[in-house]
């Protein structure tokens, strides 16, 4: 790209830079390790570009304020980590149910509970998908480098606006705190999705009527549409309903608007899968060690491929199934006790051996540990 500038950046810093480039102008947060740098940078940078930052009284309030800020028409975000992510789940569900775009950064740390606050982990993979009550669809992205954290934050905002859904950037302490060179593009070269505005006249517009993709077009507060938002199951006009048919439609739409558009949402990195006997499936910070392990295995003459979901939710059953079909084994290194291995197992359905490589010591997985698992397969 012509107008790039190369900068040394921390992962958390890259996230904030990405958010600003995507047009984020409202941040509500609460301090929590290891995500706090994002809030600190937001406090410093946002007023310079005419945006607004607020430190709320707690995690729940910061999620609520983000939803409010978004409804007021401003691209909004917050960042947190494990315990804070748990606290945010109710209002996150509210945003999902209200088709309210926003971005939530979860710099994962070791749990459960207070856990090891400064240690890396990937223990919120399932919480990111199923953490709030009821049925719904959600998008979560997992960067495995500082540069990718920058670009995926922009993508998170774009997807959030396009599908009117909260997007989780599911990163981890490794990516959050490491420093790498990032090539920052000229802002004019970036694709930034803006919020769609209703075209139907006031009084006729149904705020929750879906388009062909299942996505509604809500006005912003203050636009003069005078509409209603509620966490109760609502019909297309926004008002509560208990009509079984309408309830069914409303709930299914929240899942379908994600699954029906999965090909637009999903991204994965695949290397040397075609001739491989074994596939290593890895994501986030751990994928760095996994990629190295795959290279080491290839150097030893082993036929090993690499599959890295960049979009972790929705889970692309078909693509993962194709990548592992007919393979001897799929190895899944992750910093939890097999949270994504569970998904791969579901897709493999007994046809490929699924080997989780788990680690919950508060340390990262090394290439040697992953290589050892690969070598054991033979």
């Amino acid at each position, binding site marked *: 790209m012509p107008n790039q500038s190369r900068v040394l950046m921390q992962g958390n810093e890259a996230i904030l830079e990405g958010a600003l480039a995507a047009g984020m102008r409202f941040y509500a947060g609460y301090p929590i390790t290891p995500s706090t740098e994002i809030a600190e940078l937001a406090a410093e940078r946002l007023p310079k570009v005419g945006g607004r930052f607020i430190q709320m009284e707690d995690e729940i*309030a910061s999620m*609520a304020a983000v*939803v*409010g800020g978004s*409804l007021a028409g401003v691209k909004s975000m917050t960042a947190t980590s494990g315990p804070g992510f748990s606290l945010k789940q109710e209002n996150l569900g509210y945003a999902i149910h209200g088709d309210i775009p926003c971005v939530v950064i979860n710099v994962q740390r070791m749990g459960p509970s207070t856990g090891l606050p400064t240690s890396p982990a990937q223990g919120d993979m399932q919480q990111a998908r199923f953490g709030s009550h009821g049925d719904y669809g959600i998008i979560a992205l997992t960067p495995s480098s500082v540069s990718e954290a920058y670009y995926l934050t922009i993508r998170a905002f774009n997807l959030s606006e396009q599908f009117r859904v909260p997007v989780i950037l599911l990163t981890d302490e490794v990516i959050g705190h490491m420093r790498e060179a990032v090539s920052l593009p000229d802002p004019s070269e970036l694709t930034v999705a803006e919020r769609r505005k209703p075209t139907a006249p006031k009084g006729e517009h149904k705020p929750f009527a879906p388009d062909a993709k299942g996505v509604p077009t809500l006005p912003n*507060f*203050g636009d003069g549409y005078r509409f209603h938002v509620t966490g109760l199951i609502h019909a297309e006009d926004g008002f509560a309903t208990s009509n079984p048919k309408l309830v069914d439609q409303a709930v299914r739409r929240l899942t379908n608007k994600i699954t029906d558009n999965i090909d637009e949402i999903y991204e994965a990195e695949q290397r040397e899968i075609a001739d491989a006997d074994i596939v290593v499936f890895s994501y986030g910070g751990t994928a760095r060690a996994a990629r190295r392990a795959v290279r080491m295995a290839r150097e030893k003459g082993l036929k090993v491929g690499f599959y890295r979901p960049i979009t972790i939710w929705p889970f692309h059953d078909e693509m993962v199934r194709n990548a592992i079909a007919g393979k001897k084994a799929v190895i899944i290194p992750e910093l939890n006790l097999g949270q994504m291995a569970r998904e791969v197992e579901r897709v493999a359905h007994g046809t490929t051996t699924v080997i989780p490589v788990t680690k919950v010591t508060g340390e990262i997985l090394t290439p040697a540990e992953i290589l050892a698992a690969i070598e054991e397969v033979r």
Partner: protein
Amino acid sequence: MAIAGKIPTRKYLRQDRLPHIWCPGCGHGIVMQALVRAIHNVGLSQDKTVIVSGIGCSSRASGYMDFDTIHTTHGRALAFATGIKMANPELNVIVMTGDGDASAIGGNHLIHAARRNIGITCICLNNNIYGMTSGQFSPTTPECALATTAPYGVIDPSFDLCKLVQAAGASYVARGTAMQARMLEKYITNALKNDGFSFIEAIDQCPTYFGRKNKLGDAYAMMKRQQETSVSVSKAAAMTPAELEGKQVVGELWNSPRPEYAKSYDQVIAKAQQGGGR
């Protein structure tokens, strides 16, 4: 002040959402009307005013009002409202919340919204009970009163919400009753004019759960009691604590303007853009 009947209250209500779900005799409709009249008095634009509510009987009011409205999660109305006000300070933001919603599950947000003096008018419809869940005691249920979760009488001392928010930093605080609806309208009108965090405690009645359980009679009897137990600020000043026992002080309890939060943030923006900070 406009006289009764001259205010086109219907204009501010979503006629197609009525009738409301409230029980006969419930006080919430009276408070909603007082708010609508106050909005009219101040001349707020219907298109630039957001009504934010939490969860509970009173929080259903947002659905009946013809503005941008949001019925949020339990206790969090003020936190949502804070985000709305900060993201777009040009909007007039009004919160309608119940006693349980505002002071139990949402107590933290109440304290901090007051402390910031953010430009939100918060109306707490206090009927001393959780009505929606059918009669559990709230932080404002009087001691010794009966509730489904206090079958032997409440032992938790009740909260004086006006004192709480005043101490926390609200710049306008008033208490009124559903019985004295015109006074309530006046306080809400003044609250809407205040540039900062305004808090109105609107004492109203839940005849269905609080009234029946405590044998307080019908709605009319409960409203008469609201009047009988009310003491004006000026009268209260001359009364002893013993004389004030069982009474509530009504009127404008605090009116002390100070910088509004979103406006203070404008100065942060100016400072940051001049290269200050750090």
